[in-house]
Every structure is written in structure tokens, then in C-alpha cells.
């Protein structure tokens, strides 16, 4: 892994390795070029997935970020090389007001459905995508569920029952017992 990271480091100076995951942060303008390079030069032919993160300070459900973030979409792809276990994630940031990015289909055929999913869940527009339409949700469904501003109506109607019994991990005494025995 270290070896591969150094190799990546040669081409991408600001690549990071944390928690055994290599991340390359790129500018959205060179999105396609970077992937082409990774595929052809570093042999990362296996397209694992593509997804996005909605960074926002105000959330309707769940927890808001602890530190203030600048609202944006972060798009992440995960590529790997099957023979050698090398794996990188590539991420880029795009603005929320103009969520446009080039489609990766010309580089990886498999990006098709992943991009449709991201389009549906986040409302991100992938340019040059052959059929950018809904993947999961029924026709006529409105809203992009994965946005942090999306409300889960059931939770509005009924409080979260999980609050009542916040269950810790198995008691420490229990694990102590098995350690003794």
C-alpha cells in the first residue's frame, strides 16, 4: 500500500493516505483526464463505485457537521486494480448552485448506473450522460432523498423510538467474564 501510495504521490502531489484509504482530491475541470490517467497509467481498470456527499451546515435529520463546512457536493469515485489490491478514491467538489460535472461513461462504462443514482439522490447533473433518468424512485417522485435538507416525513409524524433505549455495547463485565473464563 505504501509503495502504491508513493507511486500515486508522484503524479498527484496532494494525495492523502488516511485510514488505509488513498484519496486524490482533484479539480472538477480535470475530472475526466484524471480518471483516464488513472485507468491507463496506473492500471486502475476496475470501476468500483461513484457517489456523492452533500456538505451542509444545516440538516433536517441526522447530525449536523461539528465544524462549519462550506456547502458543496463532493463527488467520489472508487477505482481499483484487481490483481494488486490497489485502491484509490478520487474526489472533487462542485458548487450546489450549479451541480454540473462531466459524465465518466466515456472512461468507464460502468459509471452509467452510478451516475443515474447520484443524479436521482442528489440532483447532480452529469453532462453527456446518454440517459440521465431516475433509477430507483417511482415516476412522479419529487425531491432528492440524499440531500441533507430532505425531510423524512415518518420521523416528523412519530418520534424516533430508538431514543428511549440507547443501548450501549455489551456490558464491560460480560466481556471481562469471557476474558477470565
Amino acid at each position, binding site marked *: 500500500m505504501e509503495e502504491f501510495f508513493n507511486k500515486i504521490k508522484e503524479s498527484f502531489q496532494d494525495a492523502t493516505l488516511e485510514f488505509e484509504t488513498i484519496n486524490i482530491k482533484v479539480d472538477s475541470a480535470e475530472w475526466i483526464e484524471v480518471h483516464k490517467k488513472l485507468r491507463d497509467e496506473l492500471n486502475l481498470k476496475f470501476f468500483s463505485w461513484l457517489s456523492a456527499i452533500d456538505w451542509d451546515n444545516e440538516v433536517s435529520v441526522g447530525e449536523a457537521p461539528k465544524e462549519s463546512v462550506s456547502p458543496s457536493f463532493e463527488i467520489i469515485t472508487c477505482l481499483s486494480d484487481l490483481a494488486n489490491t490497489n485502491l484509490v478514491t478520487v474526489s472533487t467538489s462542485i458548487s450546489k448552485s450549479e451541480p454540473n460535472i462531466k459524465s465518466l461513461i466515456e472512461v468507464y462504462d460502468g459509471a452509467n448506473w452510478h451516475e443515474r443514482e447520484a443524479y436521482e439522490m442528489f440532483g447532480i447533473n452529469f453532462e453527456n450522460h446518454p440517459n440521465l433518468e431516475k433509477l*430507483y*424512485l*417511482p415516476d412522479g417522485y419529487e425531491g432528492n*432523498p440524499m440531500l441533507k435538507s*430532505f425531510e*423524512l*416525513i*415518518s420521523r416528523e409524524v*412519530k418520534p*424516533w423510538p430508538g431514543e428511549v433505549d440507547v443501548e450501549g455495547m455489551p456490558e464491560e463485565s460480560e466481556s471481562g467474564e469471557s476474558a477470565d473464563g
Partner: protein
Amino acid sequence: MGVVDKFGLPKPISSVFNWARSYSLWYFQFGLACCAIEVMAVSGPRHDFMRLGIIPLPASPRQADFMIVAGTVTDKMAPSVKRLYDQMPEPKYVISMGSCSNSGGPYWDSYSVTKGVDQLIPVDVYVPGCPPRPEALQEGIILLQKKIRGEDMKEKWLEVQTEPI
């Protein structure tokens, strides 16, 4: 049929008819999610629901007598569930298997899951569990058979609402 509406059937005949219905339940293969695998387990040699007269043959709703809604019903699937139920010929029964189809289960707050199949179709027997054990489903089937055997033809034809189990 007017005669039956007014007077009902004599007891022996109706009990024979009910017996036939309760032991020849053609089960519409309607596997949605996790519970469908448990239904497969019930059809397997260890539990074998064919003992009870459940025949898992029909792939078409037209020949089915009851369906086991086994798994999560999503909002996208809901119209199909309703339609398949409507395509089944009377008299027909529904077993709702598992928390998901009973009430939404672990996905109670999801944006795409129907919270309970009883919002779409009438349910005769609810089987709790996530997923219910095969024994639980068998119990559900036996309860359904009991219910069928206790049915009154007259009420059935007059479409009297019955309490779910």
C-alpha cells in the same frame, strides 16, 4: 346464488367446502425480500408446508388462493401488489409476513417504503418477526386454515368484514 345469500348452506356441505379450501391453498409465489428466503425454507424438506396442503405451484395470480406478502413493500412496488391481489380470484387470503409488510419494520422512517401492506390490501393473518422463523410462518398458515374452516359461506358471499388474526 340467491339461495345461499338468504339461507346459507347446510352445515355439512359448507364444512366440506371449507375443508377443501383450507387444505388446497395454492400459494402465489410472491417473494419480495428477506422473508421470501424464509418461505423457501418453509417449503424445504425440514418444514415442508405442502404437508398442510400449500401448493407452491402457480406463478400466475389467476390460480392462486392466497398470497404471502413476504418482505418489504416499497412505494414503487405497491401498485403491483395491489394489482396482483386484484387479479387473484375470490375467495382469496393474504398472510402478511414479517415486520416490513406488517408495519414497515426497520424501514419505518424510510422515504420509499410503504408502512404496512394493510394499507393496500386486506390482510387475514399477520406473522411477526424479522424475519419470522419458519415455525412462525407455519403457525400463521395453520391459523389461516382454522379461519377458513370456521367461515360461513353466507357471510363470505355477503362480504362481511372479518377480523384479522
